[in-house]
């Protein structure tokens, strides 16, 4: 298919996924803020959110040094100048869809279009302020719908695979960031024994992370144990059967890449394969021993490079 078309499809699903993950994080933070907790851990939650999306600086430029929850919500939900805000992501998703309407089924286009028109309406009419949680649920739901309609109506050709590549690349990136920041925040509250934090911080902190990736019930099912940070890390990084784990995402990336290229020397495939096997054969105790932050930072770099190679090879080739 045309490289430019693939590029639009790729970004359409990346933006949709980004909007969903932003909504998830904001929702968890919002829910947690309603519970009793120390002021510092509440504050850490909101600051962490900005840090995950690397927006601390941009936020400070607009709002100054104090991180007020109300401002963070505004910034991350309705600020059109913030390219990572929910409204910006949904707008970009729709614009990309519009550019390649001919390649999408009617259902997929109408879903993207409707999502955008609705979010504008909801923000205008104050629905978000009235019930933030319901708003976030709606964003997540629209993202599920988008994926479902894609999988349910689109021919499984290259267009479909580039849509999936966008989803899983973005998901891998967002999940790695989330784990990195949330685990770092935990360290601030840790006792000096490393990953043996204060009891109360324990449950609410880790369970909120799990909920943000719809992993709370899954954890119980898989581990049948109290929530332990190393298990949370393992679930989100190394468990192939967990749809939002890093390994799960890499598997999907590999599957979809195989469908769009038969070039044995594809650099993108090579890098993805290498990254996938590193995850496949890793053990959580080794990762934790060498440093979770270092591991995740390196993972993020590699995922970003993967994205750049994908772009160069398929989406925006330099002429040839």
């Amino acid at each position, binding site marked *: 298919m045309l490289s430019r078309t693939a590029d639009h499809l790729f970004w359409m699903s990346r933006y949709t996924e980004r909007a969903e993950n932003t909504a998830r994080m904001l929702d968890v933070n919002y829910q947690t803020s309603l519970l009793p907790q120390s002021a510092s851990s509440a504050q850490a939650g909101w600051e962490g959110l900005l840090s995950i999306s690397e927006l601390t600086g941009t936020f400070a430029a607009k709002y100054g040094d104090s991180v007020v929850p109300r401002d963070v919500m505004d910034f991350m939900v309705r600020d059109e100048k913030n390219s990572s805000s929910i409204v910006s992501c949904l707008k970009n998703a729709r614009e990309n869809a519009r550019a390649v309407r*001919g390649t999408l089924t009617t259902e997929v286009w109408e879903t993207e279009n409707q999502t955008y028109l609705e979010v504008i309406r909801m923000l205008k009419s104050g629905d978000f302020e009235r019930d933030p949680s319901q708003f976030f649920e709606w964003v997540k739901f629209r993202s599920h719908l988008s994926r479902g309609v894609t999988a349910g109506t689109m021919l499984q050709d290259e267009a479909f695979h580039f849509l999936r590549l966008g989803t899983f690349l973005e998901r891998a990136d967002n999940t790695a960031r989330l784990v990195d920041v949330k685990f770092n925040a935990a360290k601030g509250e840790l006792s000096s024994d490393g990953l043996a934090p204060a009891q109360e911080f324990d449950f609410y902190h880790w369970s909120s992370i799990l909920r943000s990736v719809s992993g709370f019930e899954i954890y119980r099912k898989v581990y049948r144990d109290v929530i332990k940070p190393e298990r949370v890390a393992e679930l989100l990084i190394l468990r192939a059967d967990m749809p939002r784990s890093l390994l799960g995402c890499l598997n999907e990336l590999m599957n979809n890449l195989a469908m769009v290229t038969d070039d044995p020397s594809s650099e993108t495939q090579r890098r993805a394969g290498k990254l996938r096997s590193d995850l496949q054969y890793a053990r959580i105790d080794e990762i934790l021993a060498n440093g979770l932050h270092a591991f995740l930072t390196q993972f993020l770099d590699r995922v970003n490079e993967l994205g750049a190679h994908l772009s160069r090879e398929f989406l925006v080739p330099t002429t040839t």
Partner: protein
Amino acid sequence: MSRPMFDEMNASPDAVREHYQIYQRWLARQPLASMQARREEAEMIFRRVGITFAVYGEKDEDGAGTERLIPFDLIPRIIPAHEWATMEKGLVQRVTALNRFIHDVYHGQEILKAGILPSEQIFQNAQFRPEMMGVDVPGNIYSHISGIDIVRAPDAAGNGEYYVLEDNLRVPSGVSYMLEDRKMMMRLFPELFSENRVAPVAHYPDLLLETLRASAPPATADPTVVVLTPGMYNSAYFEHAFLAQQMGIELVEGQDLFVKDNFVYMRTTRGPKRVDVIYRRVDDDFLDPLAFRPTSTLGCAGLLNVYRSGNVALCNAIGTGVADDKSIYPYVPKMIEFYLGEKPILKNVPTYMCRNAEDLKYTLANLKDLVVKEVHGAGGYGMLVGPAATEAEIEDFRAAVIANPAGYIAQPTLSLSTCPTYVESGIAPRHIDLRPFVLSGKEVQMVPGGLTRVALKDGSLVVNSSQGGGTKDTWILEATADQSQSQSQSQSQSQSQGSV
């Protein structure tokens, strides 16, 4: 002042023309409210699917260009089989002659040597492309897709006579509306298609693809055909995307193409793919920044040279504009005689060329009764409709014509035929025209009918969508000997038609 009007449906207030009778009986039974509901349904569907037309210069509150729906009227324009048969023959004849003319202009120029057309009109015509001199194109076909605008006007006795108003040989548009209008009619009123034997049009994309493939450079086994669009901000973008999808071929923009080693390639996810035929919806001037307008980003640098080498085909060819200019229009009947040795089947509208002293004199003396058009205008702009203009407008136009006589032609005001159309107050007659789309490949062919455009304003003769015109479904009734027999035949026919 009343002029005879030719109404497509009614011969007189109480006599419905034969080919409209079945339809009219049905229409009379429909309550106004139910038709109104169908109109709204049509509008909703068109809007959801996005069958819109971007209107130049207008912006909505978000600053985006406005996308307007082209108003679609539910009452079809019906033409009986025998009338279409003659028109079709006339269209084939006319388009064949036009293609011969264009070939002649870029080769031996026999028609100029025979003194039938003055040389200056060709060589000083901005659409004449010296780059095409001596270039051979496959099949000697230049205009693969020709949109010939036809109107009907009453003669002195009140009989409707068909006239060709204008030839569009560059990038004629509108066929997607023809196809979508038919789909909509079949969806809203399936019963009509069992009662009336309407010739199908849905095979146009097939015919078009066949025509495009036939124009490929001779040695290509399985030609790669693409549609070249200026992009989604172009007013006809919907049609470009629609046709590409219907034909199952790629829709590309200039940035997707590049030239390498004298061939054209498109950038795909599996590497560069050679392009053999380009159905280009981009004007000549914007096709190649190295050859034409240097600031154009809509084309592909180096395309012209590849084209002249015969390594890529362009539909329509470069330089067809030399034949669809309003200043060349008056000569088309002579072209038919010169190249085909035949008398023209379709009439031209009598035309006064202001570049001629006699014609200029007549025009200036009769401005209030004539339609005066800019030779290089388009889309209904730059036109004076004498009978409908104010004194001031007429005087302004007089000055313009005197300043540049060669830039204008004049024609008597034709009383375009009318067709009943839904308006605010119910159903009323509105002026219409017809644009059949003639395809020239291995042979000259077309789907029956074309796009009927209707001027929605009372008394207005301007049908262009960019100025508020609408469209109607066009029905060519298939010829039938026995009426009752055909009823049962068409019952079973309608099953397959309906599912198209």
